[in-house]
Structure formats: C-alpha cells, structure tokens
C-alpha cells in the first residue's frame, strides 16, 4: 500500500471541498432546511404522526439519505470526470499507484464529504425537530456504507460519462426519483397495495427503511434485508470498478 499516494489523492480531493465550501456544504444545508419548512411544516400540519413518530422527525432519515445519495454520486462522479475531461488524469495513470489506491483516494474523499455533510444535516435537523437515535452504531454503519456505495457508483458514472449531460443525467433521472419514491416522505403503509408492491422493487427504499430504523426502531422492511441490499449494491459496484481498471475502460487508449 502506497500511503503517500492515497493521501495525496484524498487530500487533493478534500481540498476542493474547502475551496468550494459554499457550494459543497452551505447549499445542501439550505436545501435540506427548505425541505423541513415545506414538508415538515406544511404537510406535517396535516399528517401529525407516522408510526408514532412526529412527521417532521419521520422525514429526517429520508432527507439525510436523499442528500447522501445525490452528494455521493455527484461528488465522486465529478471528482474523476473532471481530470478525464481536463486531461490531468494522465498523471494518475502514470503514477506508481494501484487501482485500489486510486479508488481509495477518490471514493474515500467523496464518501468522507457526504458523511460530513450527513452529520451536518443531522445537526441542522435537530434544530427543527426533536430527534432520537435508538441505534447510533447502526446509524453510522448505514451512513458509511451508503456513502461508500454511492460514491463508488458516482465514480463509475464519472468514468462512463463522455459529457457533462451524462454526468448529470443519472443523479437527475435515477437517484432523485428513486429517493423520492423510496419512502423519504412517507411510510409505504400509506400507499395502496399495488403501489406498495412496486415500491418494494426500489432498492433505495431498503436503505431509507434501514436508516430510519436506526433512529426510531420503525421500518418498512427488516433491517437484515436493508443491510443485505446495501452490501449487494456495494459488491456490484466493486466488481464494476475492478472490471473498469482491469480493462482500462474509458481511461486508457
């Protein structure tokens, strides 16, 4: 393991976050706060409780997940797409680093950013609604695993994309809808039976459900299934990344 190389990539990526503090931290915090105001107050005045949890508190885990998924994907995809686009990737390709170290640096940085953001949003949320976290270790485990998995997904998208449109397409057309339809703002019990079945096909549902369980002990599906889902996802992403580097797909001519 080449410690200095991983540290260089990781540090370089993290420094982008400080440089663009406004964009990378402030704007997700503001938009999450807006969700609280709109959904928590407006809808929360009509739906008072879900499964014994106040509506404002109920949507917190889903909102954190929404932010975690979109930020992980966009950070990681941009992090690797930009050097490809500008040509500075040549340096990484010519460096004495293994693929594992490259991924560790890029994905590690993107995941770290989303985890930090997730915690900031958690803090912001606690200003609006009373929160309880019944299983803090599980909460952290879901947070870290989700951030990692979706940063890996972002990394893959950043390598696959051959233009800025594609880079934004996946988060826009896939991640955000899946999150909204995955029970961020409701429990699937509230849906008609047919839509419940459809929703069960949405993998993001399992993530949100597991994450929410770590807060309030309530879940749409069992925690084991949630954990298994995220691990399967992680495995698929890891396999894809391994294949990308083995073949040099879109990285090497």
């Amino acid at each position, binding site marked *: 393991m080449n410690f200095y190389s991983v*540290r260089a990539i990781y540090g370089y990526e993290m420094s982008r976050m400080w440089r663009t503090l406004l964009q990378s931290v402030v704007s997700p915090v503001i938009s999450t706060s807006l969700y609280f105001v709109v959904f928590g107050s407006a809808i929360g005045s009509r739906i008072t409780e879900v499964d014994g949890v106040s509506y404002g508190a109920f949507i917190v885990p889903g909102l954190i997940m929404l932010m975690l998924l979109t930020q992980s994907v966009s950070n990681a995809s941009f992090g690797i797409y930009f050097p490809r686009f500008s040509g500075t990737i040549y340096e990484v390709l010519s460096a004495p680093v293994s693929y594992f170290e490259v991924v560790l640096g890029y994905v590690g940085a993107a995941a770290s950013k989303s985890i930090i953001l997730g915690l900031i949003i958690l803090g912001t949320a606690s200003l609006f609604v009373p929160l309880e976290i019944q299983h803090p270790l599980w909460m952290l485990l879901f947070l870290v695993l989700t951030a990692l998995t979706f940063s890996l997904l972002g990394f893959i998208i950043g390598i696959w994309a051959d233009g800025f449109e594609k880079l934004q397409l996946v988060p826009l057309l896939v991640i955000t809808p899946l999150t909204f339809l995955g029970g961020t703002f409701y429990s699937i019990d509230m849906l008609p039976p047919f839509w419940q079945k459809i929703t069960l096909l949405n993998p993001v549902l399992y993530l949100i459900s597991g994450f929410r369980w770590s807060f309030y002990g309530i879940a749409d599906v069992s925690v084991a299934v949630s954990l298994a889902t995220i691990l399967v996802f992680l495995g698929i992403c890891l396999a894809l990344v391994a294949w990308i580097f083995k073949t040099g797909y879109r990285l090497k001519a």
Partner: protein
Amino acid sequence: MRQLSEDYGAERAVSDGSAAGAERAPERGVVSIRGVSKVYDNGFQALRRVDLEIRRGEIFALLGPNGAGKTTLIGIVCGIVNASEGQVLAAGHDVVRDYRAARAKIGLVPQELTTEAFETVWATVSYSRGLFGKPPNPAYIEQVLKSLSLWEKRNNRMMSLSGGMKRRVLIAKALSHEPEILFLDEPTAGVDVELRRDMWRLVRSLRETGVTVILTTHYIEEAEEMADRIGVINRGKIILVEDKNVLMRKLGEKRLILHLQEPLERIPPELGGYRLSLASGGVELIYTYDAQAERTGITSLLHDLNAAGVRFNDLRTQQSSLEEIFVNLVREEA
C-alpha cells in the same frame, strides 16, 4: 525552423523495422522497447513493431512529423496507453507487470498543457510528489521551483499563469519525485524563445545529474541543439537511430547537379578525388558536398571538369532531404 511536416516515404524505403539494427546494444538500455505495436480501438495502427534502446544518461530526441506515433510510444512507456503487443522495460522493470517500480523512476511532461485551474503552483507540485509515493520534501520542491524560475509564483493559482509558465509547472511536477528518466513530449511547441533556452539549459543540467532525457519534437533544429542521439519515427516505425553528429553531417549535405552536353559512360579518372556519381543515363553528373564546410570544393571541381573536357549546359543544387538520407542509409545497411 525547418519542420518535418513532409512525409518522407519511409514505408517504401524500409522493408522492415530493423533498419536501426546497427544501433541495437547487446544489453538492454535504461528504456528498452521491444516489438511494440499499437492498434487503437478504431483500428488505426499507430505503432508497428517498434524496437528502441535508450542509453542511460543520454539525451535522446524522437524526431518525427505530427501523427508519427511519438506521443503514443511515450504513452505506452508511461502507462497511459496499452500496447497491443511487445514489451517495455524502464530501469529494468517491466512497465506492465512491475509497474510500480518502473513508474516510480519515470517523470512525464505531457504535450498538452493540462492543469487544474484553481490549484496553486506549490500545491500542485507537492501533490505530484505525494502521488508518486514520496514523502514530503519542501526543500527539494523549493529547489525545483527555483531552478524553473517558478519560486516567485509558488502561491499563484494555475489559471493566472501564462502558457509558458504552465509548461514550467508541468516540468516541475514531472521532476517532483526525482525521476531517473524524464520524458518531454514536444517541450518547446508554442513556447517563447526565452523558455526554450531555459528548457535546453535545464535538460543539460539534468543530464549532468545522471537523468536520462527523452524528448519528442518535429523540429530538426531542436533535436540538433539538444540531443546526443536522434531517432526518427514515421508512420509508426522507427526508421533510423543515429548519433546526432553523424545524422547532422548527412543532413548538411548538398548536391550540385550538372547537366552535361554529352553523356558520360563513366566518371573520368582525373576526377576520382571528388564524390561524384552519374544519373539519368549519364547526362547528369552529381557532386555531393558538405554545405556547412569551409571549403565546398565546387570551384576546384569546375576547374578540373574544364580541364578534363567535360562540358555542361546547366547546373542546379539540391539539398538532400531527410527522405534521401533515409533511403541512402537503408541501402548502405542492406
């Protein structure tokens, strides 16, 4: 500058890539390229069985027109392009199987000015050193920046720098991990005279510290100015590798072509002391001479022709083109 933009028809001249065979050292060089080919995904063959041995500590110029395959070849050595076949060793390490050891020894200055706009000079050069697995060494980075006249700019962001300054930063990045082998891909393309002079000075001082420098160029003058040896590449083939001095002597040759009134069957013995040959069925007498020499011998040749009774009704001179040199080289070696 004279530019190698013409195609020298090397394909025709060289039937197989081993034309440069006379240069092949028995032991392998600090960079050793054997049988390397590259076919790009679109089916284009950019390199055809390239063999090349770079000697430790030399300055080697890879000279060839645009599209010859220079960048592709460098890319393969540095791990940016996958070779379709063949093997490359750098400092004795296979660049694919033992890439860590090989790449740690190599620094690369790419052809394109690719930089991260928002980083400072200091940060980007320090990053490169870390990326190549070396512990921080601010004193060394300082020395590199000073040697490239970048020290005053160390806190500037890349986007505020001129093209020439960016080029310097790319060189500093390539030197940040103290490589033994340095690749400079078209280092002086689009660079002002001052930077070109600086660059040449830097390359020479690097050689003094034992660094092997391989640079690509399509300017003959640049190869002439800097290199110890020159390899010429065209259409993906190395067509010759030659000591700079030998090649330049050949490049300096000119020919005086005399159109004779009466065809000659052979060159009169009185003129045996001159480098003469006959062409076009004996109506053309060709005198080859070194245009850069103090005495070209033209005056005495004309005098001796007159004395020998050889009459001509026209004359012209012709610079030997690279193409002719290659053709001649191949003939001589065949």
